[in-house]
């Protein structure tokens, strides 16, 4: 086998699966299921953003929904005002990135770390939640958009072909856009993690003071990672709004933040593939739970989180990378040489 293929086997596998899903799902699924899968894809993007800053940057962000919600609202407000969705997507990523940068400067440059970062991010989310929730009065408008408080903003236009507001994307186009976005984010992050920046970021997670003794500015690395995570969460928020055509303050809620963390715990912190799978699995579970009346959804979600923290602290990612992926690869090349899959190359 070509050495490039060998050293990038798991990456290529993810790419192949991704393209297979991209092409295959619209053919295999009926419209309604495709719409639902699109949502899972959007959540997978959201999961990636936290997987990056928590799993690789070591930043315990308990209030990740702040970026998701801000991106969602930024998109809703700007797309209704502008009409064309091209610029709003950029805004929906830029604003959360700016918020993350400001917050990161506020925290990291004061050497605040660990649980305290968690408390501050959680608090910031609560502030957003409270403030946005209290904008029901008619005086809260941005341009043509009434923020709507608890009810949120309904009837938000979906994405359109860039610079052509009349060519609104249909459900299938929407799926493609989200899937491509997911793959871009995934491979983008993978690439970033292979570059010096990414490696130093992981080193910061491992031992912040050692990184500084080596002459790297750990604070700056965390701040940049945090902003990138914020931008990706904003993108997810934007796609979410475009998908459902609405946004409400629950996007900022603690429950939303908790959801993302559950995805990570189930998928496996410190990996990228795990949280994506976690997001899809848990979202599917949540949706399925609502269609039955026997068990309360919270009981199941709580049990899942507890069980993973106590019994499967590494999440399901090791199962995927150590068993499924080699199996998949051996299927592809029909000649099993499982050992060549580098264990270090965490997917």
């Amino acid at each position: 086998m070509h050495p490039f293929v060998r050293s990038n086997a798991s990456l290529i596998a993810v790419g192949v699966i991704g393209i297979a899903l991209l092409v295959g799902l619209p053919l295999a699924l009926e419209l309604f299921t495709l719409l639902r899968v699109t949502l899972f894809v959007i959540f997978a993007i959201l999961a990636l953003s936290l997987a990056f800053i928590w799993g690789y940057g070591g930043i315990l962000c308990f209030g990740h929904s702040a970026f998701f919600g801000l991106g969602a609202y930024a998109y809703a407000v700007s797309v209704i005002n502008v009409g064309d969705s091209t610029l709003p997507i950029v805004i929906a990523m830029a604003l959360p990135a700016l918020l993350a940068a400001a917050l990161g400067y506020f925290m990291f440059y004061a050497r605040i770390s660990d649980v305290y970062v968690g408390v501050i991010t959680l608090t910031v989310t609560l502030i957003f939640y409270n403030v946005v929730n209290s904008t029901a009065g008619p005086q809260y408008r941005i341009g043509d958009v009434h923020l709507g408080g608890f009810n949120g903003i309904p009837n938000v236009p979906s994405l359109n072909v860039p610079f052509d507001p009349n060519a609104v994307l249909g459900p299938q186009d929407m799926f493609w856009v989200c899937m491509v976005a997911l793959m871009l984010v995934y491979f983008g992050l993978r690439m970033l993690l292979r570059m010096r920046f990414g490696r130093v970021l992981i080193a910061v997670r491992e031992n912040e003071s050692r990184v500084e003794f080596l002459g790297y500015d750990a604070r700056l690395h965390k701040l940049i990672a945090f902003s990138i995570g914020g931008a990706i969460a904003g993108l997810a928020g934007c796609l979410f709004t475009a998908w459902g055509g609405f946004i409400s303050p629950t996007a900022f809620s603690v429950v939303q933040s908790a959801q993302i963390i559950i995805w990570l715990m189930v998928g496996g912190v410190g990996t990228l593939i795990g949280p994506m799978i976690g997001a899809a699995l848990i979202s599917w579970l949540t949706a399925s739970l609502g269609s039955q009346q026997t068990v309360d959804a919270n009981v199941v979600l709580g049990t899942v989180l507890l069980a993973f923290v106590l019994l499967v602290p590494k999440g399901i990612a090791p199962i995927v990378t150590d068993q499924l992926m080699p199996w998949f690869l051996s299927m592809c090349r029909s000649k099993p040489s499982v050992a060549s899959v580098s264990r270090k190359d965490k997917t």
Partner: protein
Amino acid sequence: MFDALNFAVGEMNAAGGLLGREVKVVSFDTQSNMQLYAQYAQEAALKHKVAVVHGGITSASREIIRPVLGKYKTLYFYETPYEGGVCDRNVFADGTTPGHNTEVLVDHAVKTWGKKGYVLAADYNYGQITSEWVKKYAKERGGDVIGTEFFPIDATNFGSTISKIQAAKPDWILTVLVGGGPISFYRQFNAAGLSGKIPIASTTFGAGNEQMVLTPEESNGIVVAYNYLQDIDSLANKEFLTRFRAKFGADYPPVTDLTMSSYIGLLLWAAGVKKAGTIDRDKVIEALESGITVDGPSGKVSIDPQTHHCIFDVHLAKFKDKKTVILNTFPQRKPIDTAMVCDLKKNPRDAKQYVISVK
């Protein structure tokens, strides 16, 4: 609500179904999770291909469901009291709006209690808009609203508000509170020894059977106005309650206006289907627009073709020992608020919620 709907469907099926077919209910628990409303609306429309969707409690959830069902051409019935203004040919709303009951309440307050009112409202669309209506109606009657406060849905501490109210010395209080937290307002109000000293009217009290949680001292004297109250003294209502209790047991909480509008909503849709002779969406809408009327436990309810809202009786009542005493009945009130902005006869392609400017 869900029980009432199932009950109505059960009765209908027992009587041979609709157009000879059995009516089947597909239900979803949205866990109050907004994106699940969207998912389930899609699922209902695309996977189950239902003939009609009933549901959505909050205005927020309705505004999520409404475009989805509009897009996939599935008829939608919304049955909760709300702020008014929805103008969409695909949607029928049979809940009360401020035009139905708020005027009745304010009229009563200004005439019996005095000119100065104080409004406590939930901080969202319904609360904001209703409080505007209160102001307007009070002014028209020579009264005035001297203070308005908005609370988040989960607010539980009203100590500071109760102090502010005492400082303002209003003649009456009108509450537009919803959710579980605000129950503590009535409790704290009574604990401060103010029950009976400043009278309270409410557009929402009792809709969640708040009186069953509170003591009689805490809830006595609160004045409400609804289309349906369990204590309505009519033959139709008594028969309905007997059947309902037989199915769900005597311990089932009192039937509220909300429960009843779910029941009525289904009856209205069934009447439309019968008249149209099909479940085809466009034909059913036409049939419903022809002015369908049903006679239910709450009296005569008919659809207003112009707004797709309903015309029905409104009963003004006062709580006494966890029950209501009906003070007055205002027959066949129209959705006058929505009618100010919405005319689906003229503009059948409208599909939005108007914010009615209250002036």
